[in-house]
């Protein structure tokens, strides 16, 4: 073997090593994160029973009552509702951008959508506080205007750019020859979109929705400003309640590290992490089953 080839093979091995190393580091970080959160969080169960933490909604740290149910429900409800509103809107927007908009409009929309992603969440929170909260109060005739519905509306708008930009990229890569095949059989434009283009782009669309969901469930600032921050179980979409991240950020500052209270906040963060992983896996699973059936 000549030296030139040997050098190339060596370079090849080096590059591969770099990739493996990067993957290892990433995995290590996630494992370390889980380990750290668990180590601190699980200490909670020295003083609080598992049943109480997950199934009681009485949160009164001064009285040693640590029931986190209302936060868990709050987080789930806000996320699911935000996806239910923002997901379809985002997909329709992506369809418009990728398939309907003329070239010049696409050239404006694409960077504009990316710009939206850069808006800090505290700005969304302010808009929520000054526009959406009064609007909800008047439109639905409720007192306050804080709660799950308000938070979910804001989140729905916040996740739109993510969903739109990833879904429209996915729609853009659907081969034109599939569309032509459908149209040539006498399908209308919308039949072609619905039966051919959307299903073909489904994996990419799901990725967009998953990322939107991850953003929604972890969003702290914007939610904290409009959810009401009251540790009570929500029985309506329009009453003040709280979510895992918003409760953590509200209480973190005045909680002694290592106390039961402090540990329980770590546990809440761990639950949040697991919940979002679980939801991602669930969405992937459902969509992969659907893709096989189609």
């Amino acid at each position, binding site marked *: 073997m000549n030296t030139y080839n040997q050098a190339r093979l060596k370079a090849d091995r080096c590059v591969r090593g770099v990739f493996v190393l990067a993957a290892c580091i990433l995995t290590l970080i996630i494992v370390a994160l889980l380990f750290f959160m668990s180590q601190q969080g699980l200490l909670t169960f020295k003083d609080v029973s598992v049943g109480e933490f997950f199934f009681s909604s009485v949160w009164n740290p001064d009285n040693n009552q640590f029931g986190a149910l209302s936060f868990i429900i709050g987080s789930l409800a806000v996320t699911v509702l935000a996806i239910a509103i923002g997901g379809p809107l985002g997909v329709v927007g992506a369809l418009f951008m990728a398939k309907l908009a003329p070239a010049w409009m696409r050239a404006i929309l694409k960077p504009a959508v990316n710009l939206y992603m850069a808006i800090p969440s505290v700005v969304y929170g302010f808009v929520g506080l000054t526009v959406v909260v009064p609007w909800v109060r008047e439109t639905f005739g409720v007192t306050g205007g804080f709660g799950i519905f308000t938070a979910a509306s804001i989140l729905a708008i916040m996740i739109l750019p993510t969903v739109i930009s990833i879904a429209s990229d996915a729609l853009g890569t659907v*081969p034109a*020859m*599939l*569309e*032509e*095949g*459908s*149209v*040539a*059989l*006498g*399908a*209308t434009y919308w*039949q072609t979109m619905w*039966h*051919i283009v959307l*299903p*073909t782009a489904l994996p990419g669309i799901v990725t967009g929705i998953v990322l939107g969901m991850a953003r929604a469930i972890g969003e702290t600032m914007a939610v904290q400003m409009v959810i009401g921050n009251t540790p009570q179980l929500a029985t309506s979409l329009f009453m003040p309640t709280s979510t895992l991240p918003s409760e953590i950020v509200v209480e973190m500052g005045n909680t002694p590290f290592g106390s039961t209270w402090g540990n329980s906040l770590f546990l809440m963060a761990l639950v949040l992490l697991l919940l979002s992983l679980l939801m991602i896996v669930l969405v992937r699973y459902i969509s992969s089953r659907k893709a096989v059936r*189609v």
Partner: protein
Amino acid sequence: MEQVITAQNLCLFYGKHQALKNINITMPRNKIMAFVGPSGCGKSTFLRTLNRMNDLIEGVKITGQVNIAGQDIYAPRTDVVELRKKVGMVFQRPNPFQMSIYDNIAYGPRIHGETKKSVLDQLVEESLRGAALWDEVKDRLHSSALGMSGGQQQRLCIARLLAVKPDILLMDEPCSALDPISTMRVEELLGELKDKYTIIIVTHNMQQAARSSDYTAFFLLGEMVECRETNTMFTNPQDKRTEDYITGRFG
């Protein structure tokens, strides 16, 4: 002989670029006509005017007339969906949908409103038999169409067309992405389909045109130079340019 397709003074522009120049041609029913000519001479473009696929492209302008089965297909009131059901198209690269074999065939009938399973089952079998594919796939109708070979995929695309019961089949270089054996099978299929359908096939391959068509039309630089029975075209072309092309003296 009955002429199903007539084009008169047909011109087509992509923006400012004129891709078809004054095409006049007629095509008889239940025959196979081959379009030959060098790349970029407008064969695909002309084929796509016959089922109005060019409607999808921005900036296309068309003048002149195309009559199919007695109807001016560019008249304002033309039902394009009906037209495309009657005039089906097979593309250069096989383009099966990401669905099962069965669903690929049932797609056309379903979008046209057929929901009865028994009817669909029957259509699927008929169409697959019509495309000489039934025996190869009858045991795996519900597996993905993307797992088939290229030649099978192309015949699936033909079967998919047959399921909407067209009269005319337009095929744009249907064998150019296939190996010789698959090409042979598609050519055999053409012979069988001829009894029921009027077929136009674009091909780069002179032997293919000579073997499988009844009529041949030669295109050059957006013009239809000459159109006659395949036998006389290949033995006794009238136009000097045709002769140069088929004897291979052409650039």
